[in-house]
């Protein structure tokens, strides 16, 4: 094994993506570090506005301009810092190495072309057509389990259900055999039974070397699908580790509170644990630890200084008073 093969597929270091708005600076991503290995599914979980989508957009260098800007950091894909690439080189990376699936496939599919045309176009652009294009398109649609692929390729996107459209998006995304797949809330709009089918598809796709960064606000999806998880709060990763560790022995009070506040099927409680207060104002996040106004253990140190990431075994957390490794918040 060479050093490059042992290094992670994707290594993000100290990423900062800010928006310069009239009302002030929004630090959408503020000092984020993580890695994705080959064949690994990493969950990125957090509430609305915590910065999840902007992590993905930063990796693709698609942060909305001119307000949004990557102000610092490194995004290293197989040894290459993507932030140092020209826009032209970046376009190749986007088509060939990194693919993305979004929550709303209708916005990314062209309504006036058939699904077959669009999958065929994706295959052609990436020069992966040997032999009959039609056969290749059918093969791509079959790989994502679209029933009746040979007839459905003549249909238009609006003739597909939400779940089937997401599969078409997956077919297009993997048509270039990418190394990294960014999935930004792909099942948020889907029914649970259709979501379960899509999660199964994700598991099949990563059997190979594909690394997947899976964005969601659903802790259940993370627990069911992912190998590791990154918990985001107000632009920062407050805890990361294997799903077993983070779910069974969270170190950060926010992670613990979030897990405790979710109702679990078959485990009815008189009252749910509730996190007090509101998510922070992105224009004026709290000083010190960003979670301190809502944290039951906050003290003067938490209010004064931002905790730096600390690593203990395979878990990394940002907290002055980490929990001792048990789900210890009690309702």
């Amino acid at each position, binding site marked *: 094994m060479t050093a490059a093969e042992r290094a992670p597929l994707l290594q993000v270091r100290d990423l900062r993506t800010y928006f310069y708005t009239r009302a002030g600076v929004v630090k959408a991503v503020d000092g984020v570090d993580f890695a994705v290995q080959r064949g690994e599914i990493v969950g990125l979980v957090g509430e*609305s506005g915590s910065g999840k989508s902007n992590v993905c957009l930063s990796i693709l260098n698609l942060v909305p301009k001119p307000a949004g800007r990557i102000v610092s950091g490194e995004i290293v894909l197989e040894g290459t810092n993507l932030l140092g690439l020209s826009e032209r080189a970046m376009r190749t990376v986007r088509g060939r190495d990194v693919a993305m699936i979004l929550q709303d496939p209708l916005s990314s599919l062209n309504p006036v072309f058939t699904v077959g045309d669009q999958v065929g176009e994706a295959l052609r652009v990436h020069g992966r057509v040997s032999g009959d294009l039609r056969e290749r398109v059918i093969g791509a649609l079959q790989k994502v389990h679209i*029933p009746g692929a040979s007839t459905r390729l003549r249909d238009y996107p609006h003739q597909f259900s939400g779940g089937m459209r997401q599969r078409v998006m997956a077919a297009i995304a993997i048509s270039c055999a990418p190394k990294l797949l960014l999935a930004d809330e792909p099942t948020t709009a889907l029914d*649970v*039974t259709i979501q379960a089918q899509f*999660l199964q598809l994700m598991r099949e796709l990563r059997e190979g070397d594909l690394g997947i960064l899976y964005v969601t606000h659903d802790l*259940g999806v993370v627990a069911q699908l992912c190998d590791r998880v990154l918990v985001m709060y107000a632009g920062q990763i407050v805890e990361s580790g294997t*799903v077993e560790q983070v*779910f069974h022995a969270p170190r950060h009070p926010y992670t613990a509170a979030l897990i405790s506040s979710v109702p*679990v099927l078959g485990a009815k409680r008189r009252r749910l644990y509730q996190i007090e207060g509101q*998510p922070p104002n992105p224009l004026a996040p709290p000083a010190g630890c960003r979670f301190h106004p809502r944290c039951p253990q906050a003290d003067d140190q938490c209010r004064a200084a931002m905790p730096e990431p600390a690593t203990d075994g395979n878990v990394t957390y940002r907290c002055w008073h980490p929990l001792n490794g048990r789900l210890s918040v009690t309702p």
Partner: protein
Amino acid sequence: MTQTAITPLLEVNQLTKRFPLRRSLALWREPPAVRAVEQVSFQINEGATYGLVGESGSGKSTIARLVLLLEKPTAGEVRFAGESIFPMRGRPLRAYRSRVQAVFQDPSSSFSPRMRVSEILGELPMLHQGLRGQARRERVSGLLELVGLPPAYAGRFPHEFSGGQRQRLAIARAISTNPRMLVLDEPVSALDVSIRAQVLNLLADLQQQLGLSYLLIAHDLAIVQQVSDMIGVLYLGHLVEECPSEELTAQPLHPYTRALLSAVPVPDPARRAKALPLQGEIPSALDPPPGCVFHTRCPLALPRCAAEEPPLITVAPHHQVACHLVPGQVSP
């Protein structure tokens, strides 16, 4: 059973709603229609919560809209405290509207942006109870306090609130008429995960304090189970199973209920789903399958299922199922 002695607060009997398509090509034939709700019956007791679950398009919101008189039924009736609601006119109708209020998924769209909180919350008490001046101001403060908002917010506009606070405001407005029942259609789906528990706990507290009954609609099974006493499972407009909330996970009987339960992602990596997900998609409500509506996706379907519609049968006290295999091959 002692239970049967209690008159339910809300009785839904054989409720059916079809939406006919405008253009009918052949006048002599029955025009095609979306079969949104098909002969659904259930009851809600005083002070209890009835949860309706089902996937998108299963008819949950249509039932809510029928109960709220926002839609006319094709057939069937709804009784509230013994009175049939669809024929109501005049004073009984006004009384019903103040007794049954609603909270929807997106509260921002239901507030007029130019009305202050004091007007939003004072409007219905003024109309229904004739509250004015100081009495009205006190009522507004009281409502804000009940839903956990500072009374000082009375002068604010809805857009100055966060999503969770706006939902509290919607709940305050709903209880401003002293209702006996709230219809809650996806009340927390638009909220952040950390805010959902706050709103669900608030709803539980208000139910205790005010003795409210709830008709709760949500696609999140865990939330519905957390809150409900009884649960009804809808598939393509049909009620396929009904049971007490604890039995939903302990003893689900209908193959669809089981499939739905196993598709819910449990937030515990030690409890990963082992069963393969349900295949296929929900058929069109314009042309629902004959026989059992679920037979096209059912892993256990028999030839009989495609031909004969299974009746809803009672298998245990308060537990009803519509499946040819129950009781029978489906082991509990």
